[in-house]
């Protein structure tokens, strides 16, 4: 974030109906593709997310044995 300069005053004098600039469209497509890829990996990978370690001592459970942990993480 930077100080507002007069550049924003001059910025985009297109009408209200003009679409977003190209960099926004390209970034949006890339971001959407990455999110989809991540979702596919999460669905395919299965055991992921904050819930996978609910057995941690701090959350009231027992610490898994090293052998179990080795099996979990490959």
């Amino acid at each position, binding site marked *: 974030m930077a100080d507002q300069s007069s550049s924003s005053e001059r910025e985009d004098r297109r009408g209200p109906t003009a679409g977003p600039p190209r960099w926004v469209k390209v970034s949006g497509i890339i971001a959407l593709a990455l999110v989809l890829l991540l979702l596919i990996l999460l669905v395919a990978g299965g055991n992921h997310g904050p819930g996978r370690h609910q057995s941690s001592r*701090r959350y009231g459970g027992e610490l898994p044995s090293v*052998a179990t942990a*080795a099996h979990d993480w490959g």
Partner: protein
Amino acid sequence: MALTPRLRKLALTTHVTASVGWLGAVIAFLALSVAGLTSQDPQTVQGAYLVMELTGGVVLVPLSLASLATGLVCSLGSAWGLFRHYWVLFKLVINVVATIVLLLYMQTLEHLGDVAAATTLSGTGLRGLRDPSPVLHAAAALLLLLVATTLAIYKPRGLTRYGLRTQHRQRKLRLP
């Protein structure tokens, strides 16, 4: 809700410090996670996971929250606004997503820290500790923060629909 120039400078300085500090801390975290995954020295692996847990809670989380809070102050306290320019909006989304993922991931880091503290320095213990997820999360965070930094420096043009409407209203008000 415009800030005075002096307050704006102070907010901007705090925001840049917190954001760049967060970026640097993520780089250090990435180095620790790579060491934890690849090192052959049991003490290094154990120490890496213990320090990662500490770094996450004491450095990464406070810096991410500070970056988010000061970013909100900077944008809302200036004519940039929060939803007027695409680059500001993108930075906000990146910051919010990265902070939420970090807060959720702290649970995993605490678990890894617990395992590291309880693990004996044997070959079997090391196999149990090695986890690629900190490397993946740190690399993704680094990428996101580099994008946010680039957006902050270059400030690419582009007004949102809301920004265009606001600009149109302001021009109308200025006309005699």
